[in-house]
């Protein structure tokens, strides 16, 4: 019984951790997107020729270094897309603590599909 209680407490702690990670992810991405928006209003444009926007890692990185509004926004949006993925990663950890090996594998499979999706997206552009 004591063991069960401590396990339940541990789970609650993990859930709180998942919540905190999600919140931090959302706040950080919102701040970056917000910064990009402010830059965009100050400059009056996105920092790129009409109809052009950065989509690759390198162009976004270079754009962020040059504080180009669109690049900063894309970085923020990328972080926002990453938050649910981060959630999946933390869930693997939660199932591992519960010693639920079946679900460690199932959740890992979901993560692998997400990674394959990014690769397809990156190669397809």
């Amino acid at each position, binding site marked *: 019984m004591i063991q069960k209680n401590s396990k339940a407490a541990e789970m609650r702690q993990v*859930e709180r951790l*998942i*919540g905190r990670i*999600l*919140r931090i*992810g*959302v706040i950080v991405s*919102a701040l970056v*997107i*917000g910064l*990009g*928006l402010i830059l*965009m*209003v100050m400059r*009056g*444009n*996105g920092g790129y020729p009409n109809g052009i*926007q950065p*989509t*690759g890692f390198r162009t976004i990185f270079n754009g962020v270094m040059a504080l180009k*509004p*669109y690049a900063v*926004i*894309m970085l*923020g*949006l*990328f972080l*926002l*897309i*990453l*938050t*649910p*993925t981060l*959630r*999946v990663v933390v*869930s693997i950890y*939660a199932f591992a603590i519960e010693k*639920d090996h*079946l*679900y460690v594998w*199932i*959740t890992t*499979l*979901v993560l692998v*599909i*997400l990674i*394959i*999706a*990014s690769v*397809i*997206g*990156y190669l*397809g*552009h």
Partner: protein
Amino acid sequence: MTYSLLLLLGVGLLAGIFGAILGIGGGLIITPVLTLGMGLDIKYAIGASIIAVIATSSGATIAYLKDDMLNLRVAMFLEIATTVGAVLGAVLTGLVHANFLYFLFGALLVFTTYNMIRKLLSKASDAQNVQADQLATKLNLNGTYYDKALKEQVDYQVQNVPGGFTMMFGAGFASGLLGIGSGAFKVLAMDTIMHMPLKPSSATSNLMMGVTAAASAMVYFFNGSIKPGIAAPLAIGILVGALIGTRIMEHLKPRLIRMIFVPVMLYLGIQMIAKGFGVTI
């Protein structure tokens, strides 16, 4: 430019508020506003709305996690089906004709409205006599949650796992193709096919929407469908709106909001279907 930024912020704010209250992710609201209202190409509207879905889902999940309402095992198991479907859908958008997308989107709006009407009319309770099937037991999908309205702990069983899994693949496909969370399909799969109670169904659906959307969002992000100038103000508006929405929901009866919303959704749905056939009403 400042005008259109403020307009998009406002649209996002409203979509966030209604999306959070109705549990529909915001994508269903944003796509018609961007395409019908602002004349944006549906491809870019889809890119913007997938961002909206992720923002709403992450916000709502934080609220639900504290209630132990969602079933993480059901979510992760079914997520295998939705993510595969979502990637396929997102890859196919480039190949599918825009008119077909309009039609599909309109049909989905009408379907969601139909679901809302059904919920308005029925006084169904969650009490169901459900026998867990072998697969559900093997996968440890059965769960328990604390119902605040009933003030008791509710244990529940899950049925027809293959049926739910298949439906989820369809939900993921629609989500990837149209840039929506397809929360209505997800709730349908869990609530109607697998006989999970409604509250954990919608909480779990909210979590799943974000993960499903993330799978296709990566494809959209790199192929340039996500326009920073459009998605950014929407995302900020939605994040703030979702926060307000969850606060409002505590004080409002969802029934009232649904009643206001049903005619609007129906109208937008029919308009989109018409646009799919090349007619502008």
